[in-house]
């Protein structure tokens, strides 16, 4: 071994002094310092644990659709709203008749609004919907809410997506594209957006005015209105079909799909027919269809820390829905099994789920997402906290 030269290195004496030398350096260091970490501070701004807002204004778009302008609730400690990406949502928490409900709501405004201290969400009435009817009929200006940080990844990626985005929307599915269109107009998003906006009647095209305004001002946004239950020469009639897609798509496109469950099913079939690669098809939060055979009533026991609570849960109801109704504030955000926030351990019982987003190892140890999990027997569930 040719390591005689090692003798010229520091050697034994230095070795014995390592400890003392380190101490010396520490002793020489000032105890005063600025322990502020820029990235950690920015992380708190971009991903606050929660945000408190108040309703500053309510804009009625028709009897069944209202936009709510939210501003920071300074009295509850929120001074600024987190910035977001067009296409993201917040989860809003409401208490109704002893139940605690959270719902994902798309931010339907430009990210610029957040910097000015404003978010906009739009609520469409859902028949028998506890939360939507509460918002449309009960919520007044000045109401206070707790919301999450902006979440979700139904967002344009300049790395993954084609520059031409063909947005396919029906009903409330238009909301993320309002945000994208405004962001393009504000120069925050660099893509060409063509929206095929399907609705039953002209009256349902509640964002037409806003969209027309943007398309007038920005050459990068185009909107095609499609009416399924009303004929008018100025509009496309029928539903979004292959012909319409081929007519309005550019040479290379990414397809962003947002709307009702049946709309997804229909559009997905069309895109499959057109042989569009998976990478060019993005979906907003979307709940797969599930066939539930029984609506039997089961018992659901929820363990949380050292607390235990038992309630009823029907076979047609998710575990999360039962917990919401019973006022259990279980963690949740997306309600379609993709965000993973409600991950909980199934201690016992049989369940049915449409979940495709459980980690491989989580499956082994019986973790489930209660937001997309239905009981098929009595259940014991351990919440994460």
């Amino acid at each position, binding site marked *: *071994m*040719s*390591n005689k*030269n*090692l003798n*010229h*290195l*520091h*050697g*034994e004496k*230095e*070795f014995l002094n*390592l*400890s003392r030398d*380190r*101490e010396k*350096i*520490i002793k*020489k*260091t*000032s*105890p*005063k*310092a600025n*322990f502020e*970490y*820029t*990235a*950690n501070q*920015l*992380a*708190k*701004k*971009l991903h606050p*644990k929660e945000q408190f807002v108040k309703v500053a204004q309510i804009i009625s778009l028709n009897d069944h659709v209202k936009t709510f302008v939210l501003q920071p609730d300074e009295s509850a400690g929120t001074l600024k709203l987190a*910035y977001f*990406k067009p296409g993201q949502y917040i989860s809003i928490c409401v208490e109704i008749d002893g139940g605690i409900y959270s719902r994902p709501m798309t931010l339907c405004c430009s990210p610029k609004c957040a*910097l000015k201290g404003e978010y906009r969400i739009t609520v469409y009435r859902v028949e028998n919907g506890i939360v939507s009817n509460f918002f449309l009929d009960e919520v007044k200006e000045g109401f206070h809410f707790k919301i999450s940080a902006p979440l979700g*990844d139904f967002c344009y*990626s*300049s*790395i*993954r997506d084609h520059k031409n985005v063909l947005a396919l929307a029906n009903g409330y599915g238009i909301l993320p594209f309002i945000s994208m269109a405004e962001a393009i107009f504000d120069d925050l998003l660099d893509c060409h957006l063509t929206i095929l906006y399907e609705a039953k009647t002209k009256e349902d095209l509640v964002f037409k005015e806003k969209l027309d305004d943007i398309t007038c001002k920005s050459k990068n946004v185009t909107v095609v209105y499609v009416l399924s239950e009303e004929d008018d020469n100025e509009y496309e009639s029928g539903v979004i079909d292959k012909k319409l897609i081929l007519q309005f798509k550019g040479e290379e496109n990414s397809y962003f799909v947002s709307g009702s469950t049946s709309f997804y099913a229909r559009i997905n079939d069309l895109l499959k027919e057109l042989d569009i*690669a*998976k*990478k060019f098809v993005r979906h907003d939060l979307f709940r797969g269809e599930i066939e539930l055979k029984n609506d039997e009533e089961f018992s659901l026991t929820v363990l949380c*820390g050292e607390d235990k609570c038992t309630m009823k849960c029907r076979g047609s109801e998710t575990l999360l829905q039962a917990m919401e109704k019973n006022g259990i504030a279980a*963690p949740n955000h997306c309600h379609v099994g993709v965000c*993973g*926030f409600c*991950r909980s351990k199934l201690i016992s019982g049989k369940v049915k789920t449409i979940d495709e*987003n459980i*980690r*491989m*190892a*989580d499956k*082994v*140890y019986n973790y489930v997402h209660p937001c997309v999990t239905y009981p098929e027997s009595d259940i014991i569930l351990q919440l*994460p*906290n």
Partner: protein
Amino acid sequence: MAKYDAIFIGAGNSNLTCALRLVKSGKKVLILEKNNVPGGVATSFIRGRFEFDASLQELMEVGTEENPGVLYKLFQDLKIADQIRFFHVPTCYHIYVKNTDQEYVFPFGIRNFIDKMEEYVPKSRESVETFFHLALECRNALKYIEKKQANIRYEVLLNDYPQFIKIANSSVEEVLNAIEMPKKAQEILTAFWMYFASPIHTLSFVHFASVFYEYIATEIVIPKKRSHEISLTLAEEILKNGGRIQYLSPVQSILMENGQAIGVQLENEEKFYGNIIVSGVAPSLVYSQMIPKEYVPQKALQLINSRILGGRGFSIYLGLNQNANEIGLADYQYIIMDSLDSKREYENMNQITHSNIRVTVLNNANPSCSPKGTCILQFTSFFSGDGFDKIVTEENYFQLKEQIAKRMIESFENATDILIMPYIEEIEIATPVTFARYGNYLDGSIFGYKVTGLDNILPRLFNEANEIYIEHLQFSGSYGPNACGYAATYLAGDQLANRILSLEEGGKEHE
């Protein structure tokens, strides 16, 4: 109010291992974790049809069943080895150097490595052999020190590890020069410095050589179901043995009494009391924000002030809609370097424009990790200083991270001549801000404190006991004495558990 034997802040690798060892010894433990899964960054996440590992690229010290490494033995001892399926990484690494347009491909195995180096740099053989001899001695000496901790006997070291003693205080560069390794061979061999995020003129030879030896000599593995498989197995085993893990429970402060740590308080003001508090959160954050000022000794502030933050992580996770081999991705690990000068590159890596990256192709070790006809790529890199922090703002954050990621992906494509951009079906990007948020890493420094000068691991280990400034408060994780890395943190957790158990026994004897 229930009192715990040990309360852990964070469910990272060290804390999980330490807690499992303690519950198995009959201790009552509580882990408080801010996220909803165990592991810290040893976790996974799903995008579309892909499950990505958040941080693991290779697990060392596992070895094979016939020749198990220390980590595997630890997992066996904790009775979790059988529950985790490991895949061996088939190829070592493939380096591309952009400024010279050179490529180097290395196989595993010391003999193979030396032969290959001789091919690339004729007449390097003797010095590279010497390097591995020294590396083995350093590795063994380090194991002795880690095992004996406070009871190291200098005579034993001097007798059993005479070369180690000579070089214990030297940098990688000093030792490689002393053994007269040709410059080019030095540069190629030390491209691995990226693993430590510390350049070779200040990085301890002992640390570098021990890890590098392990990397080349024994097999590298990855778990089948991502690092989450290990984290979850540890967590489930803790639960099975009566331990408690509470998720979504960020600790806000450490409760003090008579100068000692006695418990913790959550953000929701819930309090827990314990005999010992183990913090996975960095000392800098604990001393500056989690303990009332009057309890923090000046020495503690001097210590945290004397330390430098290690590399701030930047990772890109890609799900491609093509089979890896079909697009030319034949190796498991690629290292792309702008140049092989670590001092220069370390400085450049403070700029967001650098493109020094490590890229792993998960399918080349774990073929079924993604659906047929797809593959998973993980890019990791870091910024050496606050270059990223200085530029990033709330408004430019989303664009900036895409811009950096795009440059890194293009850099990979240019160096390897392999096209990947058109096949990206899913992409996620983690920045220092992501790591700061997810794991409380200071400015995203997933490498912990920088291993450099007198903050290399030997001085850290020697002074570990002296640097406990608050009684009943211990630190673990990548900011601990063993520095970052999967094997390092699991093993450190076990060492900490043994120390806690022996302290207790010692205490009983006193009584």
